């Protein structure tokens, strides 16, 4: 996104108060064409900043955008002076958006570029913990992460004495390690972190506890308590068990920790009374995720929230389509990590809620109550 003059159409960068071409004050941020050309490149061999000094040499360059402005950008190793590049804003390790230039076309092993990997959390070569392998989303996530080149996928299974559907897809597979983890149990999370906490590069929190009902159609707090135990306290247990080591390992050479992924209901943003108490538990987790993001940031570890509408699973059986396929959630996890994103909306329902919330929150509240 760049500023574009609403009067003359010129793009402006860096951000300004008035259009440099016509002095109009109407400069709105819009999606800008991403193509440009690399004017000049240089390699910083002894950067003054400690972070970059550890990673030197570091290539940066000047890119002349096709839409006008010239920008300083981090460079993919395959960018060549004079050649066209594709620009994007990436979140660096400190959470700042920075310009990054990649070659326009595909190059061999393009995603493996050292500087690109610093800006993203690509699961390739990394060790991932999927916290709940009992759920369909968990199992799809394991498959997708493995297919994306994850070195090891640890899969948490609570109450291992209880068989579950899809178990044979996880046990005895190359590169997949089934571990005992009940996120809602403090000791279970701590015990597992003692074993593997030092080698979890990416944690994918696939806790899933969906129950229908709001306040008046339920009796007592047992179900609400389960929702809180599983989703909210489970999140806290995982964060306290795995978070500190992940934050410490944010710059641990090439095997550093990189990201934490939460799968949240989009109704964390706006309560859906049919699943009202569940929505509230998700809202609590959303708030917690912002806290976690701030606390992991000093270590350079990203927190990605993935918002979904109703997923095509048992507990949403009574909900009419459209529903999100668990596989789509799993693929979104991988693509989000590859892009180094902080937020993703998966499926039409989630995207629609996002837009309607931005446009008119009160209207959305009224509509969700049908």
């Amino acid at each position, binding site marked *: 996104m760049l500023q574009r003059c609403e009067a003359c159409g010129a793009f402006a960068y860096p951000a300004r108060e008035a259009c440099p071409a016509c002095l109009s004050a109407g400069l709105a941020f819009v999606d800008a064409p991403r193509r440009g050309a690399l004017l000049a490149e240089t390699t910083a061999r002894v950067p003054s900043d400690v972070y970059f000094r550890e990673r030197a040499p570091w290539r940066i360059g000047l890119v002349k955008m096709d839409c006008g402005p010239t920008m300083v950008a981090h460079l993919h190793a395959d960018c060549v002076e004079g050649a066209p590049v594709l620009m994007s804003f990436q979140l660096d390790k400190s959470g700042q958006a920075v310009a990054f230039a990649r070659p326009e076309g595909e190059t061999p092993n393009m995603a493996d570029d050292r500087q690109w990997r610093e800006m993203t959390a690509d699961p390739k070569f990394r060790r991932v913990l999927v916290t709940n392998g009992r759920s369909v989303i968990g199992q799809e996530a394991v498959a997708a992460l493995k297919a994306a080149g994850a070195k090891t996928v640890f899969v948490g299974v609570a109450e*291992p*004495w*209880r068989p579950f559907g899809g178990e044979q897809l996880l046990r005895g597979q190359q590169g997949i390690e089934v571990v005992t983890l009940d996120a809602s*149990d403090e000791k*279970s999370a701590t015990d597992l972190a003692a074993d593997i906490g030092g080698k979890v590069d990416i944690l994918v929190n696939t806790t899933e506890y969906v129950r229908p009902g709001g306040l008046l159609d339920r009796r007592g707090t047992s179900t609400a*308590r*389960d929702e809180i135990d599983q989703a909210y306290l489970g999140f806290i247990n995982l964060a306290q068990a795995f978070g500190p080591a992940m934050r410490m390992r944010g710059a641990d050479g090439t095997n550093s920790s990189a990201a934490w992924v939460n799968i949240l209901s989009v109704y964390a943003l706006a309560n859906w009374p049919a699943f009202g108490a569940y929505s509230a538990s998700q809202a609590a987790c959303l708030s917690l995720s912002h806290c976690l993001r701030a606390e992991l940031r000093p270590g350079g570890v990203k927190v990605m929230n993935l918002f979904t509408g109703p997923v095509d699973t048992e507990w949403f059986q009574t909900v009419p389509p459209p529903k999100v396929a668990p596989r789509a959630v799993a693929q979104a996890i991988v693509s989000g990590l590859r892009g180094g994103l902080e937020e993703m909306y998966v499926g039409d329902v989630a995207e629609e809620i996002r837009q309607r919330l931005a446009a008119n929150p009160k209207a959305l509240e009224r509509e969700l109550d049908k």
Partner: protein
Amino acid sequence: MQGKNLLELAGAISSGAVRVVDLTFTLSPDFPVIVLPPEFGQAAPVRIQEISRYDGRGPAWYWNNLTFGEHTGTHFDAPIHWFTGKDLPNNSVDTMPPKDMIAPACVIDGSAGAAQDPDFLLTVPLVEAWEAKHGRIPERHWVLLRTDWSKKGWRDYANLRDDGAHTPGPNAAVMKWLVEERGIIGFGTETIGTDAGQAGHFEPPYPAHHFLHGAGRYGLQCLCNLDQLPATGAIIVASPLKIQNGSGSPLRVIALVGAS
């Protein structure tokens, strides 16, 4: 009984002449709990959360907060647990007579049958065969069904399959007979539940619960070390937590075994 005899008992316990056998599993989050269809309410699992451990949260002391359902770990079932016992007097763990907490036990060994068939059922003929050897089961005695189920790993212990749990227990006829013809004080098992894993399909469903609690009797489950008890003569001490209107409770079950 003379106070002197009680002192003799205490001395025998202290000297080891009377053995004290612990029939209890450690209460822990790892221990399997009853699994109901997910649309029903579920027992809260056992959770142990540290309040402090000689640290900033409490420099000199260690203690925990506990949460668990009434029917977790080695536990006791009171008559109020089942609909058949809901209107009986003194039917909950806080109102039951304390004298019922200490009673002798008859231990029936079903381990051979259970080893061959996870759905092994205790029947009237099997109990009659036991009586032929050890004598008639006296009134107000516990009947404990030994299956060696407690020696299994958790997965085999719960033994859940697509159609539910497959674990041994009593059939309907023997429960009715033990309660009505023998007047037992309660029935105890090594498995999760006094009833067999498939007892939901029996007539009536869950006959151990149905007949025991309907007659004001008690249940004990998730017991271990039953193989260390004699067929007759052991005294069971089973005193549940005094939970207000409680339907049951995890508890420490011990057996006193005299010299043979």
